[in-house]
């Protein structure tokens, strides 16, 4: 669905560190090798007997078949935690939305840099950007001011074209 949430650098699901939502019955934790030691530490310390925990470890690459089976088999009341680098998180996030999770039910903890994209209003192409206010389109070289608005359909921030002095 075009209005489905996507993971972007200002997603409300992104949190600084893993913290279990104690209003949920079950916690599903999906993590990669960058997050493995943190996750194991939290699990060893913060788990409560009456709650259910399940985890899924991402190795070198994501086993999509297994991930989908896991996500689709969840019942109401499951809270999803994604602890990984950006690319793994974006992939898991998209699969989770597809499987019916809402943003309220997802917590994302990113290891390493977050990716940002700008959508060029001159050539309608997406370029990866850092946190500069002004950038150049990697496709048509137009100069753009990075706008504050993000499009879920175009999957980037708006790039307002300008001609440099």
């Amino acid at each position, binding site marked *: 669905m075009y209005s489905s949430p996507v993971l972007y650098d200002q997603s409300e699901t992104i949190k600084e560190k893993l913290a279990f939502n104690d209003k949920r019955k079950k916690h599903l934790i999906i993590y990669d090798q960058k997050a493995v030691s943190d996750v194991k530490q939290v699990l060893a310390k913060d788990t409560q007997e009456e709650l259910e925990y399940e985890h899924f470890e991402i190795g070198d690459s994501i086993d999509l078949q297994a991930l989908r089976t896991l996500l689709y088999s969840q019942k109401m009341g499951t809270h999803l935690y994604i602890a990984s680098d950006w690319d793994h998180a974006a992939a898991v996030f998209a699969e989770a939305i597809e499987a019916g999770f809402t943003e309220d039910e997802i917590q994302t903890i990113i290891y390493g840099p977050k990716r940002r994209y700008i959508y060029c209003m001159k050539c309608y192409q997406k370029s990866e950007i850092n946190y500069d206010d002004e950038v150049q389109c990697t496709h048509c070289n137009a100069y753009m001011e990075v706008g504050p608005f993000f499009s879920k*359909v175009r999957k980037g921030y708006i790039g307002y*074209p300008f001609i440099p002095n």
Partner: protein
Amino acid sequence: MFKSTNLDMFTFPFTNYKNKTYRYSNDLVALGEDKVNFMKITPEYQAQIKRKRELLEEQPEVRYQSFPHTMEMQWEFVELIIDLAVDKYPEHFSIEKNGDQWTFSNHILGEKETFIFGDESSISLEPYDMIGRHFHHDYMLMVNRDDNFYLEVAQESFAALFSPHWNLGMSFNEIHGPVPFVSRDGVELTDRIRKFLLTIEPGAPRTRVNWNLMADRWDVNYETMDIWGPEREKVTAENAGELVHLRVEEQWFVRMPRSNAILFVLDTQFLPLEDLVLRPEWLEITYFNLADIPDYMAEYKGMAPFLPQSVEYLKNLIDSLKVK
């Protein structure tokens, strides 16, 4: 660039002139029976249609956007537009129906559109795009979901900081978030309007008049900001009469009975400041209103770089008329 030549058909925006002041408001009002039908054929009709079609041909990605799942709504739009046109201007438009085989005639342009109603394969354009090319308005179809409105089809040729391509799929609040050159003052107003839109019922559209000043351009979209942004600086008190236009956007919000979507219709009209002398009372009211615009609003509306020059031009014009 066209301008309104029949001033009786021009929607003069400053109706609160007694106070000689202008502020934003969400003045969405109910319509008198004569205004429920938004069709309006002005002397500029042919020039506007020609330009609209050129833009759609040259920049289809910029000017028209839709989601594939909107076809049923698009046909509802076709029927609505034809009904309104034929009802108001039977001398200009007619429709012949043989079951699902329809022929729409535009007698002004001497054109016919023949199609099978409900069958996209019977026409080369999408239905909404096809019928929209016969009328000068911009048309935005917003689907009502989760107490908000999402843009799912748009055909546009007179954008003011709007882009069908960029805004596709956005909610009403996302589209009306602060635009460039602005503060965040517009946000609360946007949410009030959104709540008001939820109350609109089929058969009882609402209207609102918005206005702005444009510097030598009718089309100020995101795609061409690099061009019109700097052009605003070239206005002086001497050339403002010719370059600066009072841009009036008469808006209609129409609830579609079958899809429950809101059709947002824009009738954009332009009057160069120099033509205000044709209606001396308008000239004076416009001068008082523009002279009173607070800085934050001039910034929000994007007119800050040329507002002082425009006010000075109007003042000089009024003074020169008094001397005579």
